């Protein structure tokens, strides 16, 4: 594999022209399909991992379906019927089949199917994570740009240090501090998250959402503002900023029209990586504030060794992460036309 010299034409269309072939009809579509394909492969690998974990369970999958009370004969019969005495790869196919049908097994303890438990809880976790994310971005993006413009001045250093401290604080400690300050000592915010069953019920008690969302948002702001600052710094020294200024564009408009969009690209890419971290954080926050979302479901399942729920959650969250990454990639391709297919 040798490096490609600059003399090679930049776009696939030009390359194809050199090669004498017709260029691909719609490179953007091709790019989308490729990304979706890659996402599917990743999901596939995730199912393999989950399946491997399933095999490692004490008692095997039979318990997951029949429940803890099953007798040895029931288990043996179940295993035979369901094909658990068949070779591993056959089992995997059956497993995939069940997944595609939406069957994630039966909870040991909750007296409902895993799928039901998850569908009940997932939207609430998404709401919490989504709110934290939006608030974090709204704050972090301008802060990052501000820091880049005032590089190495007092404000920049202070903000960077604050960001590092915030980033180094485990979210449960942060949550506990917030509870101690705002709930215990100042008494202005409730420490318990909304307990409603539906999204509407949750949103009916917005003041209960403040502390959990804040706990989730602060570490995100710390992280995103660092990336935004670094990206904005890189872009500020680029030639096109100089060209924009040479046109007589006022500096403020240079920032909003030119710098912003180009600096967002790596931050959006980061989003993809942050999703698993955010879901992990949600677990802790839900436990701390007693918010009945997927995180709390997962945690109580971990406490009581309710394996079908555990694995079902892992699967669903991982898929959510992959889908989120895919969305981030698509947003990136909208922001940056160079990534729309053709150039690697």
């Amino acid at each position, binding site marked *: 594999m040798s490096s490609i*010299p600059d003399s090679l034409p930049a776009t696939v269309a030009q390359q194809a022209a050199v090669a004498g072939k017709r260029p691909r009809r719609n490179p953007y579509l091709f790019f989308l399909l490729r990304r979706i394909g890659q996402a599917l492969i990743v999901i596939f690998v995730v199912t393999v991992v989950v399946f491997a974990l399933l095999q490692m369970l004490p008692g095997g999958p039979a318990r997951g379906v029949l429940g803890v009370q099953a007798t040895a004969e029931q288990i043996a019969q179940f295993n035979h019927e369901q094909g658990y005495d068949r070779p591993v790869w056959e089992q995997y196919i059956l497993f995939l089949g069940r997944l595609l049908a939406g069957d994630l097994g039966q909870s040991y303890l909750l007296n409902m199917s895993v799928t039901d438990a998850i569908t009940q809880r997932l939207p609430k976790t998404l709401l919490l994570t989504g709110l934290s994310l939006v608030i974090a971005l709204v704050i972090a993006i301008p802060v990052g740009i501000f820091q880049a413009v005032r590089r190495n001045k007092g404000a920049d250093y202070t903000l960077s240090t604050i960001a590092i401290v915030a980033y180094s604080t485990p979210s449960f400690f942060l949550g506990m501090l917030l509870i101690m300050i705002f709930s215990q000592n100042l008494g202005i915010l409730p420490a318990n998250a909304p307990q409603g069953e539906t999204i509407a019920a949750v949103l009916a008690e917005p003041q209960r959402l403040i502390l959990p969302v804040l706990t989730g948002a602060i570490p995100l702001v710390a992280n995103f503002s660092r990336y935004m600052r670094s990206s904005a710094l890189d872009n500020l020294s680029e030639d096109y900023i*100089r060209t924009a*200024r*040479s046109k*007589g564009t006022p500096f403020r408009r240079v920032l909003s029209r030119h710098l912003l*969009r180009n600096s967002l690209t790596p931050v959006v890419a980061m989003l993809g990586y942050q999703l698993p971290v955010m879901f992990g954080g949600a677990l802790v926050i839900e436990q701390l504030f007693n918010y009945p979302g997927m995180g709390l479901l997962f945690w109580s399942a971990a406490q009581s060794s309710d394996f079908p729920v555990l694995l079902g959650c892992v699967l669903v969250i991982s898929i959510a992460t992959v889908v989120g990454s895919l969305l981030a990639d698509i947003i990136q391709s909208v922001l940056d036309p160079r990534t729309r297919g053709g*150039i*690697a």
Partner: protein
Amino acid sequence: MTSQTVLQIDDLRVRFAGRDDFAVRGVNLDVSKGEVVALVGESGSGKSVTSFAAMGLLPRTATASGSIRVGSEHEVIGQPDGLLDGLRGRVVSMIFQEPMTALNPTMTLGAQIAEAVRNHTDSSKHEALERAVELMLLVGIPDAERRARQFPHELSGGQRQRIVIAIALACEPDVIIADEPTTALDVTVQAEILDLLRRLVRERGTGLMIITHNMGVVSDLADRVFVMRHGQVVESGPAERVLTNPTHEYTRTLLAAIPALPPAAFGGAEAAGGPHGFDAPEDPVILLRGVNAGYRVNGRLVPAVHDIDLAIGAGEFVGLVGESGSGKSTVSRIALGLLPASSGELMLLGQPMNRLKGRSARRLLREVGVVFQDPGGSLDPRKTAGESIAEPLAIHARGMSRAAKRARVAELLDAVRLPRDAASRYPHEFSGGQRQRIGLARALALTPRLLVADEPTSALDVSVQAEVLEVLRSLHADLGFGCLFVSHDLGVVNELTERVVVMRRGAIVEQGRTSDVLRAPRELYTQELLASVPSPDPIAQRERRAARAGLLEK
């Protein structure tokens, strides 16, 4: 200052924070309406700093004093940004050196030009876009309405530079400052852009200050020239006078260092009767026969060169010229065994290179040395110069004792005219020219029979280039290696090589003795190429321009 002056610089001094010396020390300069003034110098002369000062675009770490007036009365030095924003683009605008990075990659071309319009007029979005399309047509971009919706990455370097020119013209400024506008472009594209600039100046009466290190560009375009060195103007005057009869010693050195091109006849093949003849070497050091090769991009094979027949004999100095996309770098990589040929024969010292693998192929490579273009990247920053030079010894001459290796390194440093203590220093302690010489020493460590030099001096100043080439020439005389010298600079090729190969779009267009090809090119493309190279001799340059115009009509 008369009403005709569009740019007046008086006693400009610029200093950067943290440095004692001044980047610019008292420069006086003026440009009138419809006039082209060239500001010439090598790196470190302060010419770019001067141009940025005129736009008020110096970084905050710089302090400027003196006076710069643009238009007829607007002072630039010490003015607040708000006021300067009103001047930039409207009274004075700029064209930059690197077209590939000068445009916002996520904004359409039309929008970027329209922005310049809307900054200074009350035009609506629609009106501004219409004007943008007008300007695109004016600078020579066909199919402008469709192109206006495209993004910069869909255009070539030359086309992007035209867009930058369109942006600079958008509000009809009094003066345009062009900072090395054609340095990053191919020679033929450069000639087109210079044509465009000349036309625009004549038609609109805009003043143009062009900054360049290329005396050929000066002779082609400028009415007057200012020569800068170490932050000061050392000579100025009408371009023709300064170029033919320089008074200052520095100007004289600068002009003398430029590799010369012989006067050429542009009659073509019909006039001369058939292609050039040359004797194919009998026992070639390297032989390519019918070679085709390409690169793998995203899984597909994109062809880069086809049907290459090239041979270099022992001690022969062969030049390989072409513009970007010609495939000349590809050929050099094939010669080095870095890129496999998809078909054809490749013989290195009589051995079939493309059939050898692994250790036997690597052992053969001891007979080949390589020098690259970029002095910054060609040496491992974590190894001393001595270690880098000794690397070929470490690979192929393992039996050599450490003392013997050190002695050899010292020998080589002498040969490239560097002090012996250079061996213990790191690359970042050396200048570009010195690093290239270290690279040369490394390439010759095992006295190879073939040296592949891929644009070794393109990134260097003219005077430094002259030094490095002189070293190369004397080494060749002493050691007698065959050399494949890849370059886009025909003057350099003329001075160094015996035979030249001209490439275009992956194929060989013309081949022959250097003096033959450069004096009487047969193929149309070679003629175009030669006619596009600006000569520092204004009279010769006028002839060239006429010849080029004639060729373009064909």
